[in-house]
């Protein structure tokens, strides 16, 4: 079992308060960072092999380095706390139980990218996390950590999965519907309110104080060769003890399921969604895979947001796909035709299949539509829908065919 870093205070009473955060070493990294040049902080984060923990897994230090060097106007730091990927709940824990870690990480990150203003975009449904985090920001202002060259605005969303996509989030932050924007320009060049912007996930930024305090080499050593650190795996579905498990990025899926008490229900594993609903599904024989970004990519799926959903062998794969397809149909923002149309029609077809009214050619139609649309849209949302469409059907085709006899 890995040393607990991000979740070390989760069991401590009042861990969300400034008092407890300070008593457990909080804000000591900030004191160190203030004595370092921005370039030195950036370099430390680069060497730590920290990768974005929201979904895309992009190297964090490299992202920060894309801010134009000669830019004279404002630079914004935006925290994506619009947690919404089905199967993921770790940012909720961090916001509620360790909000000061995010604040400290933000102040340090802001120094590295020379930003004076940060936004924390919290999904509208997260009322309690929003209250907790807002109270922590107030404490940080009163203690003088904020307001000394860096300010934080806490922003509440209003219900839309697509706002977890970084450019959709930026549109929403600008007071518009959350439509993603065409890239390039990437946010680091032209982001929120037209200015260079770094968008990072909550958990990613919570790692930063630890990297500063204990060094890049230590952090890199916690994980795999190409991804440093531990990560908060959200494990749910048919496991004995669902919950957040902080483990090394080098853990295997098999080990992780064991940490969560093993498979519940029938006790026999059928399949696992390894990184939130957008990650292609793995069959029971594919779980000896390392859970870092590259390990899961090589296995044909993705680490995504590390939301692990376990299926025992009583779960109907067609029914599960119908539920997932309903989600993508509901959350498609409607901007790009392939996504808007395909998600809706594929959901209808999945629904028909589950009702036992599937036609023999339905499966090939879904696969054809899914494959044609992949890669043709403005953002990665549709690719995220295609992952489950294709993998559920291709890996469990017999189960679908039994329902498609017309």
């Amino acid at each position, binding site marked *: 079992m890995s040393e607990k870093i991000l979740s070390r205070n989760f069991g401590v009473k009042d861990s969300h308060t400034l008092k407890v955060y300070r008593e457990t070493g909080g804000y000591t990294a900030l004191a160190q960072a203030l004595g370092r040049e921005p370039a030195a902080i950036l370099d430390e984060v680069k060497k730590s092999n920290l990768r974005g923990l929201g979904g895309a897994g992009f190297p964090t230090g490299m992202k920060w380095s894309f801010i134009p060097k000669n830019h004279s106007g404002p630079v914004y730091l935006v925290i994506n706390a619009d947690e919404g990927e089905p*199967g*993921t709940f770790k940012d909720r824990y961090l916001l509620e139980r360790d909000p000061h870690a995010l604040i400290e990480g933000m102040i340090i990150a802001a120094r590295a990218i020379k930003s004076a203003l940060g936004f924390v975009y919290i999904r509208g449904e997260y009322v309690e996390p929003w209250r907790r985090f807002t109270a922590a920001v107030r404490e940080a202002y009163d203690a003088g950590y904020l307001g000394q060259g860096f300010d934080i605005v806490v922003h509440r969303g*209003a219900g839309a999965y697509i706002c977890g996509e970084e450019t959709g989030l930026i549109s*929403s932050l600008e*007071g518009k*519907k959350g439509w993603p924007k065409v890239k390039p320009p990437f946010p680091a060049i032209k982001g929120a309110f037209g200015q260079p912007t770094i968008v990072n996930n909550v958990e990613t930024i919570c790692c930063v104080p630890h990297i500063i305090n204990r060094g890049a080499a230590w952090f890199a050593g916690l994980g795999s060769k190409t991804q440093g650190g531990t990560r908060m795996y959200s494990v749910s579905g048919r496991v004995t003890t*669902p919950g957040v498990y902080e483990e090394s990025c080098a853990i295997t899926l098999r080990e992780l399921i064991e940490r969560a008490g093993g498979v519940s229900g029938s006790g026999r594993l059928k399949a696992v*969604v390894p990184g939130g*609903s957008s990650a292609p599904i793995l069959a029971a024989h594919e779980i000896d895979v390392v859970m870092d970004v590259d390990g899961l990519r090589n296995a044909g799926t993705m680490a995504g947001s590390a939301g692990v959903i376990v299926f025992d062998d009583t779960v109907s794969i067609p029914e599960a796909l119908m539920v997932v397809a309903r*989600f993508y149909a509901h959350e498609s923002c409607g901007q790009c035709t392939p996504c808007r149309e395909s998600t809706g029609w594929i959901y209808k077809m999945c629904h028909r299949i589950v009702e036992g009214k599937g036609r023999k050619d339905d499966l090939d139609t879904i696969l054809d539509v899914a494959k044609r649309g992949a890669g043709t849209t403005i953002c990665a949302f549709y690719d995220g829908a295609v992952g489950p469409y294709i993998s559920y059907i291709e890996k469990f085709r017999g189960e679908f065919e039994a329902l498609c006899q017309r």
Partner: protein
Amino acid sequence: MSVQSIAFSTGQLAEVRRLQGLYPDKRGALLPVLHMAQDTFGYVSLEVEEYVASLFGLSPAHVHEVVTFYTLYFRQPRGRHVVAVCHNLSCHLAGAPLILAHLKERLGIDVGETTDDGRITLQAVECLCACEAAPMMQVDDRYEMNLTPDKVDRIVEALR
């Protein structure tokens, strides 16, 4: 709701200006101000959209586009309480369809409807990210977790 009654108090208008001042472009405060408007006026009618638009110098069409994009803005009166059952994957595996069916029967309404006494609006929603405690639902501001039909009964009973 008559058009005349749609106006923030002096204190609320000061809060609107404070929120607008937090963003490089005041339009950034549109979502927070719409939350305020909904809390104040109960729901976001076309008249409320026009009023909010006037506070930002935006077209009512822009505000309408925003309001209709997000799920948390109500465009019709809602019940005194909103019960939103998650029906995404982990909750589905843990019995969300049963919880929803139980609520529909108990309340005598379908998803999207409000009880005749105006007490409860029932919704089925996408992942609320509390999958470790599936099945779960949101009741107003609160997450209610690890639901069973009995627990749902007790929760609904307590809503007045």
